[in-house]
């Protein structure tokens, strides 16, 4: 359909506003990270930097950024793997088998994923204290898995629901056990859903702040969000380093998002629309 001139103008300005509004603020941080200390402190603020990487070096070396990155990678990666590993059989069972209270479990899981961290923070801290899990990465991973399982199960259940039952019935006729069916047939077919669930879990664990703040107090153990939130220069607010750290903390996610755009969008919206 041909658009009227007015419509085209509106569309173009819409596109322009959307893109610039989304990117521009973050771009500002990127520019800041490339400046020199003097440029950052200049008043009025300078826009363009003379490109140099001093802040990155300083953030990585003097401010523990490398350990933050490492810790975040381990925590997010493990949370994702464990969560998906546990969610797959659970989602499959919930979808295919007539379990008692199935609706209750699914609904309950969904509600649980909306709990405010504050409600469970205190007792979780105590549990971890009891098992010596404070200030450890695995001690953080445990509550993360529990917090990401509901959404992972939900997304996987949605995908499983869509798969034709005939394939499984054929497998059963061929003599496969439930587990074999799940592993050899269902999972490959539902891989888009698995990807979506994995990516969303990873992003959640990478960005989580509240529990990380409570459980990790040793800077060598802290994850990126805690490190960036508590970023303290000894002398002045180290905005340059904060910007550099922020860029490095976000790059992996941006890469993930760009690579798996379609999967993420379909996962988010499919899950929502299908309800």
């Amino acid at each position, binding site marked *: 359909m041909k658009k009227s001139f007015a419509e085209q103008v509106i569309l173009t300005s819409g596109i322009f506003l959307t893109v610039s509004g989304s990117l521009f603020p973050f771009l500002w941080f990127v520019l800041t990270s490339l400046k020199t200390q003097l440029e950052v402190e200049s*008043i009025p*603020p300078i826009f363009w930097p003379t490109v140099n990487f001093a802040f990155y070096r300083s953030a990585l070396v003097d401010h523990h950024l490398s350990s933050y990155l490492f810790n975040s990678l381990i925590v997010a990666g493990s949370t994702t793997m464990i969560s998906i590993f546990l969610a797959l059989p659970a989602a499959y069972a919930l979808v295919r088998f007539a379990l008692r209270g199935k609706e209750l479990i699914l609904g309950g899981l969904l509600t*649980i994923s909306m*709990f*405010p961290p504050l409600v469970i*923070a*205190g007792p979780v801290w105590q549990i971890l204290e009891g098992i010596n899990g404070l200030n450890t990465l695995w001690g953080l991973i445990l509550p993360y898995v529990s917090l990401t399982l509901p959404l992972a199960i939900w997304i996987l259940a949605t995908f499983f629901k869509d798969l034709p039952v005939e394939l499984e019935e054929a497998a059963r006729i061929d003599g496969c056990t439930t587990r074999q069916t799940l592993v050899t047939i269902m999972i490959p077919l539902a891989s888009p859903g698995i990807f979506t669930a994995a990516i969303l879990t990873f992003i959640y664990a990478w960005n989580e702040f509240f529990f990380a703040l409570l459980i990790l107090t040793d800077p060598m153990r802290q994850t990126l*969000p805690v490190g960036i939130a508590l970023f303290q220069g000894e002398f002045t607010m180290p905005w340059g380093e904060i910007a550099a750290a922020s860029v490095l903390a976000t790059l992996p996610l941006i890469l993930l998002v760009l690579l798996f755009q379609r999967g993420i*969008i379909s996962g988010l919206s499919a899950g*929502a629309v299908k309800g």
Partner: protein
Amino acid sequence: MVIPALLFVSVFTLYPTIRTFLLSFHQIFLALPSLGQPFVGLENYSLLFNDHVSQQAFLVTVGFVLLSTMAELILGLGIALVIHEPFKGRAGVRAAVLIPWAIPTVVASQLWRFIFNDQYGLANLIVFGNHISQYIPWLAFPQSAFLIIVLADVWKTSSFVGLLLLAGLQIIPEDLYDAARIDGASAWQRFRHVTLPLLKPAFLIALLFRTIDAFRVFDLVFVMTQGGPGDATQVIQFYGYKTFFTEGRIGYGSAISVSVFLMIVFLSLFYIRSIGSKLLAREQS
């Protein structure tokens, strides 16, 4: 097969919740142990209702939820409409829009805090240019500090809402638009009478997700303002955090957590009820 997952969730989510519930019925001051931990029934809750500070925290939170959700729905709709149109480079725009969503909230908080910095901030540069003596400390005034928190959240989450609405847009059949065009409806009329009504379920879902999420806001406040100035940005979860962890008022802090939790549960039940039935109806048809 479900057991391992359920086990995790029970241990780390259900059990702590129950424990917090129980704690909220006791008076516990970590710093005053000889007062013991007496059971006080609903006293913590009545304190909560009558306390100016918690009342303000609730108001701030509700205000935040309302403002941010409204703004995100409107902006999200705009984003969805833009991305829905076929044009060259649409994938790029889609990717661009996802970036604020992907950024860790803590990073976004530092980013906006820096933008509104009174000395080095981009906001001052844009508004006042070189007149540095006119630069405003945006985060020093209660109203603007609050609005900036809302702004940061809106920037970060509008794209998520946009995606949800986009999915809703994509299932509206093209023939409805064609029929409307044939009837002579203008673009605006098509929007009002075809798009909006059919978008309602998606709107409700976005509303559900965003409202519940907005109640849990914490990171933004922690990094940008620490609740100030004058408690103007002290949202309920931050207030609970300070009370529970810094002041050691375990009983009262638990009551705060439980109140937030109950509000969220009621909200979700309410939404799920009203949306759930609609969705079920749609699926059946």
